[in-house]
C-alpha cells in the first residue's frame, strides 16, 4: 500500500493547476441548460480541448491525453479546485465515450470520439421512454432495419423522454427495439441518433429549477444509417449496462465534486457556527468524512482497475453513496443558512447564500436518475449479497 503520489504525478498535478489557473473563466458561466449558457460551455470545452485537457484518460488519437485513471482523478481534483465550469458533454465524454471505446468499430471510434472530446457534438441520453423508466427493458421505440437507395438503415418510431441535454444537444444515444417480436432485454440494439434528422421533434421539459435540462424526443419515421449501430444487433442491453455502469460509477461522479462541496459546507458552517446547533455541526463533519470515504474508495477502486481489475455491480453501492451524501450536504447547507436558505440568488438579502438552493434542487435528482436508489438496492441485494429474486 502506497498512499503518496509519485513525483511524476505531482508534476502532472502542477501542470494541470497551472493551465487551469490561466484559462478557467473568471466569471461563472450561465447554466448549460440555457441557450446562452450552452454556447458559453461549448466555447469553454473548445478551450479545454485546445489545451489537451478535455479527455485526460483517453488515447491521444481520440482527442485525449493518454493519461491513466489516477492522473484523471488528479486532474479532476484540480478542475474542481480551480472552480472550472461543469461539463456540458458529460453524457458523451463520461458515459457514451467509454462505451464506444469498448464496443465501437475502429471507424466509429475515429468518427465519434474526437468530436465528442471537443464537444463539437454534444450528446443527449435517451434511456427512458414513457413506459420504460425503472423498468428499462420495457423499451417500445422500434428501429426496423431496411435497405433503400442510400444503403442500410434503421427506420425509427417512438418516443424517448427525460433526455438530458436534449434541448441543446446534437446527438442522442439509447436502446431501440430492432426485433419487434422480442420482449424485455432481448431484441434491443444500441443506436446513435443525430437529433437534426427529419422526423425528430425535441420538446424541452422544464426541470425543478425551471430550466430545460431534459426533453421529450419524438421519433416519427426517422431514417438512421445502419453504421450508427453500436455493438451487435440484439445486444443493446449488454452495451447499455456498460454505459449505465459508467453513469453510476466513478466516471461521472469523480470524488473531487463531493470533496469540493464538503469543503464549502464546512466553510459555511464556520461562518455561521454561532447560530447552528451541535447536531448540525456533527452532521456537517459526518458529511465531510463521507466525502473523504468516497474519495478513498475511489482511489482504492482505481488502484484495482489499474492492476487489471473490473468494476461490476459495485457501481450500485457507489451511486447510492454519492447521491445520498450530496443531498445531505445540500440539506445541511440550507439548514445552516436558516431563513436565507429560501432566497433566490437575485434577492436583495441573498448575499453570501451562494448557490446552495440551486445545488439542493439538483441534488434531489441524484437518488432518481441513473437508476433510482431503490433499483440500486435491488441490484446490491441480488447481485452482490446473493439474495433471492
Amino acid at each position: 500500500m502506497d498512499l503518496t503520489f509519485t513525483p511524476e504525478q505531482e508534476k502532472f498535478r502542477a501542470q494541470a493547476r497551472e493551465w487551469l489557473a490561466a484559462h478557467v473563466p473568471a466569471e461563472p458561466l450561465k447554466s448549460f441548460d440555457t441557450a446562452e449558457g450552452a454556447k458559453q460551455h461549448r466555447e469553454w470545452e473548445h478551450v479545454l480541448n485546445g489545451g489537451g485537457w478535455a479527455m485526460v484518460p483517453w488515447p491521444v488519437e481520440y482527442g485525449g491525453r493518454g493519461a491513466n485513471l489516477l492522473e484523471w482523478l488528479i486532474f479532476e481534483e484540480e478542475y474542481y479546485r480551480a472552480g472550472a465550469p461543469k461539463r456540458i458533454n458529460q453524457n458523451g465524454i463520461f458515459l457514451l465515450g467509454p462505451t464506444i471505446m469498448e464496443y465501437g468499430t475502429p471507424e466509429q471510434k475515429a468518427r465519434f470520439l474526437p468530436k465528442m472530446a471537443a464537444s463539437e457534438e454534444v450528446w443527449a441520453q435517451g434511456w427512458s421512454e414513457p413506459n420504460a423508466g425503472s423498468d428499462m427493458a420495457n423499451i417500445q421505440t422500434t428501429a426496423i432495419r431496411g435497405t433503400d437507395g442510400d444503403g442500410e438503415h434503421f427506420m425509427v418510431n417512438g418516443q424517448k423522454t427525460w433526455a438530458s441535454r436534449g434541448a441543446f444537444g446534437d446527438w442522442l444515444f439509447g436502446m431501440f427495439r430492432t426485433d419487434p417480436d422480442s420482449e424485455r432485454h432481448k431484441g434491443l440494439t444500441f443506436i446513435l441518433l443525430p437529433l437534426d434528422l427529419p422526423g425528430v421533434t425535441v420538446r424541452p421539459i422544464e426541470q425543478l429549477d425551471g430550466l430545460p435540462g431534459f426533453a421529450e424526443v419524438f421519433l416519427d419515421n426517422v431514417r438512421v444509417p445502419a453504421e450508427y449501430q453500436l455493438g451487435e444487433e440484439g445486444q443493446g442491453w449488454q452495451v447499455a449496462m456498460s454505459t449505465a455502469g459508467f453513469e453510476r460509477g466513478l466516471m461521472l461522479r469523480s470524488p473531487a465534486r463531493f470533496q469540493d462541496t464538503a469543503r464549502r459546507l464546512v466553510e459555511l458552517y464556520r461562518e455561521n457556527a454561532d447560530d447552528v446547533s451541535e447536531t448540525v455541526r456533527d452532521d456537517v463533519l459526518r458529511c465531510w468524512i463521507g466525502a473523504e470515504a468516497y474519495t478513498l474508495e475511489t482511489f482504492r477502486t482505481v488502484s484495482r482497475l489499474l492492476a487489471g481489475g473490473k468494476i461490476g455491480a459495485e457501481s450500485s453501492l457507489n451511486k447510492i453513496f454519492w447521491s445520498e451524501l450530496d443531498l445531505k450536504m445540500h440539506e445541511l447547507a440550507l439548514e445552516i443558512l436558516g431563513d436565507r436558505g429560501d432566497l433566490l440568488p437575485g434577492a436583495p438579502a441573498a448575499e453570501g447564500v451562494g448557490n446552495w438552493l440551486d445545488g439542493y434542487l439538483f441534488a434531489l435528482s441524484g437518488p432518481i436518475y441513473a437508476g433510482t436508489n431503490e433499483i440500486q438496492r435491488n441490484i446490491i441485494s441480488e447481485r452482490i449479497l446473493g439474495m433471492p429474486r
Partner: protein
Amino acid sequence: MDFRFNEDQELLQTTVRDFLEGEITPEVVRELWDTDTGRSPALWKTLAEIGLPGLLVPEEYGGMGMDEVDFVLLLEETGRAGLAEPIVSTAAVAVPMLREIGGALAKEWLPKIATGDAVVAVGHPDVAFVEDAHVADLLLLSNGADEVHAVLAVDADITLQPANDPSRKIASVSFTPTQATCVASGDEARAFLAAAFDRGALASAAQALGACDRMIALAVEYTSERKQFGKPIGSFQAVKHHLAGVKVKLEYARPVVQRAAHSVASGSPLRALHVSMAKLVACEAGVFGAKQTLQCHGAIGYTWEQDLHVWMRRAWSLDRSWGRAPLHMGRVQTALLEDGAPMGSGCTFSSPGA
C-alpha cells in the same frame, strides 16, 4: 499511489480467516461465555501458533515484525469470527507500546506475548475501564495524563465489571504508583498514551467491519431460507433494502479504516484524525448492521439461542471501546475546525504544510 494490499497480506488474511472459521465457532464463543474469565489460555496459545498476538512484535523478540497495514485485514477477520481474546488490548495496543517503551520491559514481555505466554492490558485516561485486565500478567496504566506505569497484575486491584456483551471483559483497576513502576512521564508518556489510544480505536474499528460483514452474511442466509407468504422473505424488497443499506455503509467504512491503518503505521501527522474518522464510520456501520439484521431476523433474532447477537453485542461493545462516538467526533472537529487539517479536492492524501 497504490491503494491495495499485496499478495502476501491477502494470503495471510485468507489463512487467518480459514483458521478462525474452524476454531472460533459460535459454540466455542458460547462456551467461553460460561467460564469464569471468558478467556482461554489454550486458545491464546493456539492463536500464537499462527502469529496473531506477536504480529507487531519485532522479529528479534520472536514476533512477525509486521505493521498495522498488515494487521488491519486480520483484525477484521477476528471481528468476523467474534473472537474476544485480548487481540486488541495485547496484540494491537500493548505490543507497540512496549516496543516504544523499550529497554528491559520490552525485552522481558514481548517474547512472552509472541509465544502466547503473556497477556498485557493497557489503561488510558480517556477509557473508563481496562479491557482484559482480569487475565493480564502485566498492566500498562496511566496515572493522570502524563505518566505511564508498568504494574504486575498481582500488584493491582482489579474489579471485573460485567457488561452487556459476555465476550467483553472490562475491569476497574487501581494501583499505587511508585517511582519503580513509572516507565514514562511528561511528553514521552503523553505520546505513548496518544498512540495507544489511536491503535486501540483503529483495532476496534477493524473488528467492527468484520462483525458487520458477518451479521450481513447471517441475515442473508436466514432470509434466503425463511419462507412466509410462500416465498423466502429475502425476496421481498423491504428486507433486501435493509441489508443493501448496511452493505453500502460497510463498503464505504472499509477504505477509511484501511487508510487509518496506513497513517498509524507510517506515523502520519494526521493519524489521530484518520483514526477517529475510521472509528466513527466503522462502528456506525456495526451498530447500524446490528439493528437492521436483527429486524431482518424478526422474533428469532430476539432470542438468546440465535447466534446473531454474538455479533450484535460485539458491534455494540466495539462502539464503546477506545472512545465513544462523541469523543471521536470531537477530535475530528478539532482537527478540521481548529487545527486546519487540509480540506477540499486534492487534499485527501496531503499532509499539513505539504
